[in-house]
């Protein structure tokens, strides 16, 4: 006897999100222990990520992840120079006062928002094209069957 296929277990998004959240804060705390300037930059630079995370009602938190990924990538690119400076804020000030860095960090978040907004349109268009193609193929099969076997082949 063939074994009945067991349904795939639905992923526990809450748990996953909590772990990610904790990991994120641990990382931010770790950065804070290493460098105060990097900590400040991370805290203020990650504001769009926090906003996206808490605004997103989707349990998957896709907006949060999308924006978070692009945003934090940019943050890490910026703070990589701040981390060796340790707790000396004066040395970190030129970095904190440089608008280019802030602009880069927030542009990363904007790209994340952009990706999140554009993806459904692209995906839906692609899927629609795919589904319609499949329906067309099936209808062509039906026509062929009717042509070959007559109208009687049309099942109830």
């Amino acid at each position, binding site marked *: 006897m063939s074994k009945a296929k067991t349904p795939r277990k639905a992923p526990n998004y809450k748990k996953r999100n909590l772990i990610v959240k904790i990991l994120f804060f641990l990382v931010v705390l770790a950065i804070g222990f290493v460098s105060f300037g990097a900590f400040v930059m991370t805290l203020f630079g990650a504001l769009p990520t926090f906003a996206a995370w808490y605004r997103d009602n989707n349990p998957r938190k896709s907006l949060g992840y999308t924006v978070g990924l*692009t945003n934090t990538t940019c943050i890490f690119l910026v703070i990589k120079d701040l981390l060796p400076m340790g707790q000396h804020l004066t040395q970190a000030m030129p970095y904190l006062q440089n608008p280019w860095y802030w602009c880069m960090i927030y542009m990363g978040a904007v790209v994340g928002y952009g990706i*999140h907004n554009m993806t459904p349109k692209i995906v839906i268009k692609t899927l629609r094209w795919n589904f319609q193609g499949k*329906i067309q193929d099936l209808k062509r099969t039906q026509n062929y*069957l009717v042509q070959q076997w*007559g109208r009687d*082949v049309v099942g109830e």
Partner: protein
Amino acid sequence: MRDNRDQLHAIKKFSLTEAVTFGQGDTVDFTNPLPPFSFDPHITAYATQKHNEIAYVMAPHIVPRFSLMETQSKIENPHLLQGYAAHPIRVQESPYNQTLIIAQKPGEISLTSQEARNFFQIHKNVAEWLIGPMVRILRDFEQLNLTHRAIHPARITFDDFSFKNLNLGYGFLTPPGFLQPACYEPLQTCFAEPTARGSGHPSYDLYALGVTILSLFKDPKFLQHLSSADTNKRRLSEGSYAFFLEKQMFSERITELLKGLICDDLSQRWTPDDLESWADFNKVHARYRPPQKSATKPFLYQGQEYNSPALLIHQMGTDHTWAQDVIFSEDFRVWMRRNSGQHENTVGIEDAKVAASRTEASIRQDAIVSYCLMALDPEQPLYFKGVVFTLDGIGDHLAAYFYDTQKRSDTAALLNSKAPLFWLSLKEQKSPQVLRFNKLYQESANFLSKRGMGFGIERCLYELNPHVPCQSPLLNAVAMYDNTDILDALNHYAAHNPGQLSAKLPIDRHLMAYAATHYDFIKDDFLNAFPDERAPKEQKIIGCLRFLSLIEKNTNTQPLKDLYYWVHDLSLQSIGIYRSKKRRDMIQKLLESQRNPCPIDRLLDWIDNTAEKKLDMDEFMDAKKHHIYTVHKIKEWQFKLDNIRSVSRDICDNFSILLAAMGSLFMAALYLFV
């Protein structure tokens, strides 16, 4: 008989204002009807170009006795007039087919002429010139188990006034006894419908001869008067001999002759041997015994008194409105017991009622009357719905009135009621003839209960009258004598009606019933499996091809060109029985390649191949399942399409994260390395 096979195929259509040639040079002058031979309104005689032949045209409902005409031709008796040929004809503007029979011309002087009467009355040489030839004819008929059933002074003719050469006219022009006035018919048949008198017994001809002899000595009006319905009924109570010869004085010799011939009991009636002995002046005694005395106390029925049980039963049979009430009344039973001594019969009516109650509800009342009258007097003919039948006359009656809806349905009801079977069951002697009729009427009732092709009233018509030509419009009444030429006839029809074939099948109810009657190889199982009228056209075509193929194979008929083209076109129409276009195209190609006539069986093999049909059906079922699958799939995809936002949500989420991850990596790589 002449071989008129080549002329059987077409009905000759003409007007009665011309001379028309039939068959092998039989030219009939229709402008010249012959009054002296027009002895009956149902038959008209015309002159032909041959001085010793005459043409008779029957009224449309008259079905000649072709079997008698054919069998009689084997008798080489100079005193018997023969038929030569029969042709189906249609007089212009008449909707019915008629039959033209070319026959030997009768003599100039009939027995009804004053000269003949004078001759026989004066010379008293009945024995020499009349009885002698008639005995020879009747003996010939008896040997072939035939009956003439039309012996009448008008049909006994002589060539000249010497009265030496007697000619007995035709018995085959009409159904048996059809032309006879009631008094020339024995008691067993005289009350029956003229078309339902039946061939009867050879002694019926002797009875007719007796009355013919009597007519020589009586005024013609005397017998005419006795033939009237009311007067004729007296024969039931008085007996025929007493009825005819009441207060009549004849010589002892003639009286003995008439007593021997005009008696009602078949066992008392003379045989041809007795008649010959009488003609040879040997002493022959009549076995005639007067009938039993009639009832002393009359019975009142419909306001009229009846002394004789037989007469009362006859009256109830012909006027059956109150018959059922009377039959089951106590008065009637007491009267029957006292006056006829028929105690057993009065008891038997209860059994008759039980038997009749098994018939269909629509005919039950008529059946009860009919069954009870039979039980009361089994010697009387068969009464049904006021019509009187003899057992062997039912078929003739059906043939004569087949196109009269009312009479046809009455006859069908009679067969359906199984009254003839009950009548036969009352017979003590189970002679071969009784057994034959028993089988015939049992089968007829079965045929009527089936509605398919080859059954029904049409089958009864041909089973009861094997000599009746096929009434199918496709055959045009061509299969008159030779029933093996059905395919020839269809071929002829196809050749002469090329524009009417495309939508027409070469079979119909008449043709199937006719073939089933005449061909042993067409079994009822085949007919039971035949597609009915509601079946799809393709199935009907295949059934039709099977039928024709069966005839073709069993009669060893070579493929006929015009019929083949007809069948070929039909077979092309029947390929729709296959559901697969591929298979249809293949069979069509096969069929189209076979343009030259071949056995129908070959076409049938291509079209009606069981293995191919099974394969076709299996493949079709698979295709149907596949179609159902596609329908479900389309619905599924259409649903997804209609709900594409919810369907795509997961994908969008995952895809946007993936895209963001890739974008991040790309940005990091770009920043770090560039």
